[in-house]
């Protein structure tokens, strides 16, 4: 059961994560491109001697424009069954109890959203998102990776 939700902004759009999935939030690590990365990844960064892949959020939460391409101000480091990964963020908004907001089905794409103070945040379930990203390069299928916890 998810007790707390953390909310972030990236390129003007919000997303939310279960706090227990978060290892650390770090300020703008240096990103390194690697050849032949799967399209869902935007490079890797060094964290405590470990290379951690940075996930792209473009297809996941529908970002477009140059802001989505810009280096993030923060990276949220998550743990998953497949190892650590980073999500880009421009703003770290707040952490709230799950019951302070509402979890709803998204009208777009069938994923989940977290609604807090009348704002909607795409709720990212890391494991299902990763499973989809690693299975396919289809952006629409990647968006299907957003599912209820």
């Amino acid at each position: 059961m998810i007790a707390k939700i953390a909310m972030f902004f990236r390129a003007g759009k919000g997303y939310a994560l279960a706090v227990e999935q978060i290892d650390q939030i770090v300020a703008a690590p240096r990103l390194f491109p690697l050849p032949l990365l799967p399209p869902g990844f935007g490079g890797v960064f060094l964290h405590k001697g470990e290379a951690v892949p940075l996930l792209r959020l473009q297809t996941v939460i529908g970002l477009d424009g140059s802001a989505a391409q810009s280096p993030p101000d923060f990276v949220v480091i998550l743990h998953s069954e497949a190892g650590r990964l980073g999500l880009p963020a421009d703003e770290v908004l707040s952490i709230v109890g799950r019951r302070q907001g509402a979890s709803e089905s998204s009208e777009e794409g069938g994923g989940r959203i977290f609604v807090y103070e009348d704002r909607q945040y795409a709720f990212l379930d890391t494991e299902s998102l990763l499973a989809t990203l690693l299975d396919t390069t289809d952006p629409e299928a990647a968006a299907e990776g957003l599912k209820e916890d």
Partner: protein
Amino acid sequence: MRSTAGMKLVFRIGECGFSLPVEDLIEIRENSAGLIDRSAADSEGRLLGELFHRGETIGVRDLARCLDIVSPGEDHGLAILVLAAGDRPWGVVADRVEGLFPATEFTPVELPPLLARGGQLPYRGLDTWRDELLVSCEAPALGAAWEAR
């Protein structure tokens, strides 16, 4: 005279940095764009042309295209690395050569499990070198990747 055994070459193609054991390297020919006989280039663009090297003609392969790297190309201090792998040497084009450095300056870093993709990538690991992540490559694996493209 200092021995080059146990050293690594650092070079760049586009924004990607690479490390290569010096044992895989025969020669570095800097500012050598004009030496490539481009009439021998193949129609798919994988082979940039041929180079006369120590009494024989060797193929110069387009590693940037093979690895899907956007390379600034001929305007950026083109160097040809003559590599030893397989039956005969072959060349690859690098945008910049940083030099040869003692292997002790490099720390191996594992590829993130999310990116290893069951060994499908033409490199098996990374190196940290002077706070930078480099692709740790070997000539045989690069040759195999080029053949497979």
